């Protein structure tokens, strides 16, 4: 029973990791840039929602706050690519890595200045309620997290395989030049992918903040999600979710059953093992580069 309880809460955590990792992978696939600030995007999305919904701030209805914060995060992602990252075209990956790390610092600083460094929790209509299935007690927030992740995954899948825009995004990420020749506005598509990834990060942030408290340094969670993305294989959307679930489940189980200290190490240890033995991740997509 204990085991199932841990598994369920791990699953809910894993969904948040998986969603952040999904954001990384979207950006990486589309632009080959690695967004080290994705965790901070998640944090910012959560804080924007807190700013709209909590009584201490604006105190609007939760159901208006959620779409508004998702919208603001996608605008933020779009503008960041449009205003900053696009001008980095042709520069080394190191420069982009450092740039996004610096962006993370700025977002952390901004969130801390606007909403204070104290941990806050998102006030939701369903806070504190839980359901019990034959001895296993699950919070509504946890169940909702899993359901939202499943819905989001399915709709993203349909979006990428059925809609024109989704297909254009796929084309632009597979071969920019060919996509450009086909009349796809690659630059705008890339900004849109950033916007999409910002929206996904906002959803992850809202799920995270409704489950527990969030503070500006919560963005460091992104590093775990990063490990999740790499475990799954950097270019694979289902891989990112799977990696997130693996890390989410391993964490509570190892802190319960393994000696102390192991649970902090476990996600990164898995990452190192995967990188060493299966360098491309579980869903490996790396191929040999030709001259």
């Amino acid at each position, binding site marked *: 029973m204990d085991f199932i309880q841990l598994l369920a809460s791990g699953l809910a955590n894993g969904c948040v990791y998986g969603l952040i990792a999904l954001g990384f992978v979207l950006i990486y696939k589309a632009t080959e840039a690695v967004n080290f600030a994705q965790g901070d995007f998640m944090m910012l999305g959560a804080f924007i929602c807190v700013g709209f919904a909590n009584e201490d701030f604006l105190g609007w209805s939760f159901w208006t706050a959620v779409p508004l914060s998702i919208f603001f995060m996608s605008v933020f992602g779009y503008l960041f690519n449009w205003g900053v990252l696009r001008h980095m075209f042709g520069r080394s990956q190191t420069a982009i890595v450092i740039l996004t790390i610096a962006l993370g610092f700025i977002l952390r600083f901004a969130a801390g200045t606007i909403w204070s460094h104290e941990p806050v929790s998102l006030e939701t209509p369903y806070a504190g309620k839980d359901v019990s299935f034959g001895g296993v007690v699950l919070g509504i927030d946890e169940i909702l997290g899993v359901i939202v992740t499943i819905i989001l995954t399915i709709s993203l899948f349909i979006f990428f395989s059925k809609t024109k825009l989704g297909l254009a995004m796929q084309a632009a990420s597979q071969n920019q030049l060919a996509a450009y020749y086909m009349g796809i506005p690659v630059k705008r598509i890339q900004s849109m992918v950033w916007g999409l990834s910002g929206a996904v990060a906002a959803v992850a942030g809202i799920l995270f903040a409704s489950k527990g408290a969030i503070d500006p340094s919560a963005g460091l969670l992104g590093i775990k999600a990063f490990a999740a993305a790499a475990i799954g294989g950097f270019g694979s959307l289902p891989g990112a979710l799977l990696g997130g679930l693996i890390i989410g489940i391993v964490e509570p189980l190892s802190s319960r059953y393994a000696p102390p200290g192991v649970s902090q*190490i476990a996600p990164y240890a898995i990452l190192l093992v995967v990188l060493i033995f299966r*360098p491309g991740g579980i869903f490996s997509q790396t191929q040999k580069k030709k001259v």
Partner: protein
Amino acid sequence: MRFVFKTSYDADINWFKHKTQAFWYFVLFALMLALPLYFYFLSDAYLLGEITSVMIFAIAAMGLMLLTGHTGLPSLGHATFMAMGCYLNVIYLNLGVPWLLSFVLAGATAGAVGTLIALPVLRLHGVYLALATLAMSILTGDFIVILEPWTGGISGLAVPDISIFGWEVNKYANPYRFYYVVLIIAIVIIMAYRNVLRTPLGRSFTAVRDSEISAQAMGINLTVTKSSSFFLSATTAGLAGALFGHSAGYVTNETFDVVMSITLLMMIVIGGLGFIHGAFFGAVVFGIIPVAIANGRSLLSTSFDININIPGLENGMFAVILIAFILFEPMGLYGRWLKIRTYFELFPFYRKDMFRRQKAYLKTERVQ
């Protein structure tokens, strides 16, 4: 305007390009040698201690510069190698190894362990290396806690004094001696660095940075080159870590955290990627900014009665400066200095695009 007429092949790899350059470096050397005298007469060695720690960070940044600036491999885990160097140095010292030997051994062991860790990842491209080193950097604190019998874990470890053939050096008892020890080590490392860059190995570092495929086509063994670069880089960082330990006097599991790794990376970017000078410029900037912010704050509160007390302001400012540098001055402070110098050297003939990269294309690692 100076034109260096090269009459021998050595002119390309000489220490100094021309006599004037050599003259200015010797002036700098003499100034650095004489610097403690000034503080001695002032009888206030606080600032000297700050300069010493800037030099220690410059050594660590040189280690990272070799890897990131010259070989093109980003590492987010150089604080780990500093930690290894620091702890190994203390462990050797406590075993009774003389300081000179333990210092060098600590660096070499850190380098060897670092290479062993990085070897499997080096086959992959940049992002994975950044990721693996980041994971390594996060795990450092946890491993220090796990290895408590040797490292002292959370309660920390006291670093013994430096003793070179009976000549005792302690940062607090005698900051002047410590300054000279660090200065000499820094100079030795700069000379070694310069020498590595003019060997075939050093040339292949730059070749790998500029294009892995063409380097391979020229017969360069990628794995050997990358792992040698990693070894040298981690060794240098380990040496810097050992010095940092002596400078701090006491280290715990929280001393070498991720922020320190990222700071090192920020240093070399602000200083100028790909230049030895850049490591020093970056370290100086990171030494000055906190002091400048503190001074500016006290100036505002005393003379204008404005109290700014925003937590995390330093980090936010670092980040803004860093983004500005990446966007507008990718060559860093040293690059800016090069441009200014070239402007005056060529006086009426300097053109705006002189330092522009010839090729700007999407650097892709995928099959196209």
